[in-house]
Structures are given as C-alpha cells and as structure tokens.
C-alpha cells in the first residue's frame, strides 16, 4: 500500500514538467486559436533554436557538474568575427571556421580548469569579460551588420523548414549520438556521478572535462551564428547574460547542476518550453512585462519538483542495516 502510494507520488514528480507543459499548451490553446497551429509550432522551434543549441553544449558541462558562464560572450565573439572578418565568405565556409574558433574558446576554458585547476565558475567568469572585450574590440563598439549571404541563409527555408532548425537538428543529432552511442558520452555521465570512482575505474577524468568545455564552446559559437543570421545585426549587447536562460533551459529539462543526471533531449524540451510560454503569452496578448515573471515561476516550479523528488529518493534509499521480515 505504502509502496504503491510512493510509486504514484514518484510518477507524478517524475513527470511534473511534462504535466506542466501539457497544462500550458491546453491553456494557451484555449485562449488563442492561432496558438495550436503547425506554423506557430515551427515558429517556436525556430525562435528557440539558438538557445537550444547553446543549451545542448551547456548540458555536457552540467553533466560533469561544471558550469560555463562564458557562453554569451562566446556567442557575441563568434557573431562579431563573422560580421567583421568573414563578411565576404559564404556561410557554408564561414560557419565552420567560426565554430572552430568557438572550440578554441572552449578549449581555453578547459585548459584553465583541468591544467591550472582554477574553479570553473571563476574561469568562465573571466573569459566572459575577456571574450566580450575582444568582440567589442573587433566590432569597434558598433553594431555589426552581417553580409547579405548570411542574412539570406538565415531567412531561407529549405524544404519548408527554416535554416536555423536544420542546424539545430544537426547539432542535436550529433549530441545525441555522442552522448548515447560513444564511450566518451557514457564516461561523461560516470565522471559527473562520481569523479573519484571514475578515476578508479580507469577513466581519464581530465580529458573528459577538457572535452566537454570544448563542446560547449563549439555550441555557443554555432548558437551565436544562428542567432546572428536571424537578427541581421549584432549590437553590443548581443548574447549579454544569455548564460542564464541557457542554464535555465538545461535545468528545466531535468539536468542536474550536481552532475550525472539529465540529457540533451530534456534540454531541448526545456528550451522549447520556455519559448512556448513566451510565444503563448504573445498570442494571448498578455502584458509583455509579465513574460519574465511567468517564465521564472515555471522554471522555479520545475526545479522545486526536482528537488522534492531528490529528497524523496534519498529517503527511500536510506541505508538499511537490518532486514525486516516482511
């Protein structure tokens, strides 16, 4: 009996975010007949794609219990480089180049964290400033316009699907394969669960750590490119404080800040959920000033249920030394 009630409570807790999502869709659907349409659905995915891409990279970092505050700066730096130096290049050539630079940004973070053993929080806090500074230097503190080819790319739909979604889908598939189907991916989870045990089991913890920051760097750069190609110009606040919605999306999708738990599909879900709420609020003509309020309340509820779940789990798993004759 007790066990049944526990299991029921766990089921509800486990799927609380999903329930929340369903309720929101129903409510918005009832309030606006434009909300539940395929066009709007594509629109939501399109608008959230840059955040989703960066949040996928962040998920890798969070899975090993790290953090990367520099993603917003990396975004801006990538966009600035694209606009200033690669203006003449077609996107197909420029994007990979910029992504490699993003990787270098991430590699620097990873180097500081694994080799010089500076805390991830403070490393990425300082590269946030440095990255933004370099980007401002390149842009001359002015709006950076993008080349026509980039804008055309950003506004074109291939096979009826906007380019941003194609890139997002590509990143997602690669991330899924890496995380689920490679030894490295499984080791990321192992390192996050228990770095000491991972080292004992023969996993190269430093290498895994370094690699996840590289991945996060690439994703941040790609996110910057996608966002840049959508908005036409990068102002000096481009990507500013984007680290927060990115982390929020990952956490909302069930990724733990303490490592070892979560995944990229959840993160996509979290990012889309945030965008859905925003979109729904637009569709229902809500006061724009309450958007952040509603969104933060939803994130709060999701994290709250997650913590309750952890607490319940801990209570259930309490060490028992004496066997009850059930």
């Amino acid at each position, binding site marked *: 009996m007790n066990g049944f009630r526990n299991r029921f409570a766990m089921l509800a807790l486990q799927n609380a975010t999903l329930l929340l999502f369903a309720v929101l869709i129903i409510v918005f659907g009832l309030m606006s007949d434009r909300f539940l349409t395929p066009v709007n659905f594509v629109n939501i995915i399109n608008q959230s794609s840059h955040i989703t891409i960066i949040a996928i990279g962040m998920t890798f970092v969070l899975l090993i219990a790290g953090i990367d505050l520099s993603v917003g700066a990396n975004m801006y730096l990538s966009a600035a480089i694209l606009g200033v130096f690669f203006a003449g290049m077609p996107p197909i050539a420029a994007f990979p180049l910029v992504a490699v630079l993003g990787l270098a940004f991430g590699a620097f973070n990873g180097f500081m964290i694994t080799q010089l053993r500076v805390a991830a929080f403070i490393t990425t806090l300082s590269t946030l400033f440095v990255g933004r500074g370099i980007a401002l230097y390149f842009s001359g503190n002015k709006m950076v316009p993008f080349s026509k080819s980039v804008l055309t790319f950003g506004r074109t739909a291939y096979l009826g699907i906007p380019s941003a979604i194609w890139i997002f889908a590509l990143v997602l598939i690669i991330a899924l394969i890496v995380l689920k189907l490679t030894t490295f991916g*499984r080791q990321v989870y192992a390192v996050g669960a228990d770095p000491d045990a991972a080292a004992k089991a023969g996993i190269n913890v430093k290498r895994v750590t370094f690699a996840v920051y590289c991945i996060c760097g690439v994703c941040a750069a790609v996110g910057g490119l996608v966002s840049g190609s959508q908005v036409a110009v990068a102002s000096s606040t481009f990507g500013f404080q984007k680290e927060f919605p990115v982390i929020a999306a990952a956490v909302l999708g069930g990724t733990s800040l303490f490592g070892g738990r979560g995944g990229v599909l959840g993160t996509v879900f979290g990012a889309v959920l945030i965008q859905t709420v925003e979109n729904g609020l637009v569709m229902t003509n809500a006061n724009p000033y309450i958007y952040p309020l509603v969104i933060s309340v939803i994130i709060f509820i999701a994290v709250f249920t997650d913590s309750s779940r952890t607490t319940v789990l801990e209570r259930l798993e309490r060490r028992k030394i004496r066997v009850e004759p059930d």
Partner: protein
Amino acid sequence: MSAAASVAASPATGAELLEIEELCKSFFGVEVLHKVGFSLHAGRVLGLVGENGSGKSTTMNIIGGVHQMDAGRITFNGADYRPKGPRDASKQGIAFIHQELNLFRNLSIAENLFITEFPKLVPGLPFIDRGAARKRAAELLAAVDLDIPPTTLVNRLSQGERQLVEIAKALGAKAKIIIFDEPTTSLTTRETDRLFDIINKLRQQGIAIIYISHILDDIMKLCDDIVVLRDGDVVGKALKTEMTIERMISLMVGRNIDQLFPLREAVISAGPPALEVKNVTQRGTVKNISFSLRAGEVLGVSGLMGAGRSELARILFGIDDFASGEIIVDGETLTKPTPMICMDHGMAFLTEDRRAEGLMMEAPIDQNIALSSLQAYAGGFSHKIDSSRLKADVSKMSNSVQIGARDITKTLVKNLSGGNQQKVVIGKWLLRGPKVFILDEPTRGIDVGAKNEVYKIINRLAAGGAGILMISSEIEELIGMSDRIMVMAHGEIRATFERGAFDREELLRAAMWDGIRSGAK
C-alpha cells in the same frame, strides 16, 4: 613461530595460483604485516579472518594494488606480481570487490560493465555497439544468475544485485582471482544465499576466491581453506575440515590483555540513571533497545560491523529519527531529540567518522574545540563571544587532553595525527562538561600511546560522575574499560555481561555465533 602456525595446510586440489611469502608492511613506522604468507589455489575459496586491525585489509589492499608491499614476494600464475595500482591488478586478472561498491548509479548495468572498454560498432571508431554490449552483459549477468535486463539502471538494483553486477564486472575483465571484502554486511538473507551459490559456481569454473568476513558461520559454510590473522601475523592456516568456529575465535583473540588499560574500580551507583532507553525501535536499523546507563558507569557496546551500534548512538543523540520508544535523560523524556536538545541535557557524542562529522579539517584546533560551547561564552543582544574567557578555557582544555601542537590557534586540524585529532574532538565535548558521553569507536585509527591517553580521559570522566556509553569493535578495549558490556547483533541487544563475567570468547560468540542469519528469520 607460534604454535598455531604449525597447523599444517594440506595439499590442495587445484593448481597453485597465488603465493604470498613473507609479506611485510608498515605505516608510519608501525608494522601492520609481519611476514604474512599463504597460498591460493584455483577453484578454491580461502577464508581470511581476524579482528579489526589484524591486517586482513592491508594484505588484500596489497594484492589488489591499492598499497605497495615493503618486503616479501607475491607470485601470481608462476610470475612475480607487483601491481602498480588497482587498474593494473584488475588488468592482470585480480578483481577486488570492496565493501563500498564502485558502480555508477546513474548508468545501466551494461554501461557499468564496459565503461572503459565498450564493444565498438566498427573497430577504430568510437561508436558503441549497444546490441553487442547488451548481449555480452546479458551473458555475464547470466553467469552470476542475475535475471535482470542489462539496460536497467544500477540505481534500481538492491544492494545484493549490485554486488552481483560487480562480480559480473570481474568476470568480464576475465578475473582469475576475486577478493570479497565483507560482502554480506548489507545483504538480506536471500541475497546472501544467492551470493554463496554464485561463489560456489565460480569455484567450479576454476576461479580462486579470497573471502574476508567477520561472520564465522559463513566462513565455515563457504570456504575450503582458512587463514587466521592476528596483529599482522598468520596464526592459523587450515583446511575447513580441520577448523571449528571455537578454534577460530580462540586463534583470533589469542593474547592476554596487557597493561594497556588503566585500572579502574567498577562504580555501582544507586542514584537515578543518567540515560534510560526504553524499547527504542527504528525500522531497518534497531529494534526494541532498552538499557539504562548509571552515572559514573562505563557501559561498553560490542557487536559486529553492521550490528546497529552506530545507528543506535545516532538515534540517542538526535541525529537520526526513531519510530517508537523512549529516551530519558536525567529523568526527562526527550520526545523529539536533536543534537542541540541532547546537548542542552548534558549529552555529548563522539562520532566514529571524525573526518566527515567530527572536525572542521581546514580550521585550527582552538576553533574546533570551541565549536560546541560557543553559546556558553556569549551574551547580550549580539551574542558577542567573550573571547578572552573562551580562549583561556580552550587552551586549558587543550592542555588537559594533551594535544601536542605548538600553537592551537594556527595549527590546522588536518595536519594533526589521528590521535591528536581524536583528542580535539574529545576536548570539544569535554568543554561542555557532559553528563552522558556517547563514544563511537573512540580509539579507531589512533596509535597505542594516544589510546592509553584516551582511556585515562574516559576514566577521569567516569570518576567525575558522567555516564559513558562506549561503542567499540575492539573487544579487549571493552573488557579493559567497561563496567558492563552489551552485545548487539542485528539491531538488537543480544546479551549483557557484568564486569567479572567478561570473557572474550563468550562476547565474540554472542556477537557472531548466534549470528546475523538466524536473527532474520
């Protein structure tokens, strides 16, 4: 050579797989292994028994590559064997299954089995062949009779099932020798039976097994050969058929109590009990615990690891909850005790885990000693600490428990020896002048000299009228120090002995013989 060692080891059936000769090991100048030697044969189970500190774990840690030997020789499969580390040992075919399992609970069984070497889809590329991993995992699980899909998360497994996964991992690494360290302490009866079936199966496959346990019943049931260690010496080697539990116990204990323990008179106090416990029960840990502790009395608590002693202590001090029963301190019933409430009633608690719960390792000595008493030195609206009075009392306390450190305001606790660290914890509690002091393994991991000083402190405290509940795994210590000894097994009090009726073998028998198995049924 002791008489016990002359018990001849009969020729074994299987081929000799591992031979240990004259193994020596010292830690910080203290010899913990003295020319230990025995051999292990394929397809046989060797039981290794001995009291805590007899050298079992050190021996196994050397074989498992955790420690390096100082002198001696190990021959494995006919070749010299000197593992560089745990990884190296497991690569060479020796698997060590620790009490604390080394599994990732957020991953599936299959992933745990292959975390460093997954089967690949295409050789050279990093992609995992999940199908192959599943299939191979299923085979390994079948070998340990675990009928669970390999995709199940380890999180969902019971302790016993996790143990079997560890064994499967050892099989996957093609282990020729598997070492078990106290594998049954957290298993249910059924899980234990299952584990034994698996071990028997492994034996038939020609794998050699070293089985360490305090539960002598199990040793008799399972092992072919038995080695008894005491104080770093092998004091007995025999076939199971030539050994009895009685004999094992007497070999393990074997020595007279030396002059380690200061003399003390048993105190019989007619006054009210300092601590009274009535029918305290908590599901899964302790059951129907009742006793009373008189002022000025040292009440020893004996029992095996996992008997529920520490759990009882934690309940008494309000750290863990209890479901029913009564705890009465100084005539007052504590309905919902917390450490703070217990402290207000004059209780103190020395934890068994100094590192995690006893000390702020990164803080200096004086701050650690002061931590529990701060409020007594503070007053006024702001709770400002009277630092000169506190400083004087802390330094007096530090002298009185004889902590050897130059400057107690500068020396960090992490830089002290185990003995001095323990004195810091004791000093912290003595500063409160406790009336009831619960000591959980007060001399664990400290050297003989410091032990003696701790004993003197305990005696002084008891003579001053405090009631002391002393949990210890060292039977001799309990015999030397206690006025009465309670023996716990399986969460219950099994027997109580009065001073004068103390007998090592009786105590061990109460804890082991009528053991954990029968209690569960």
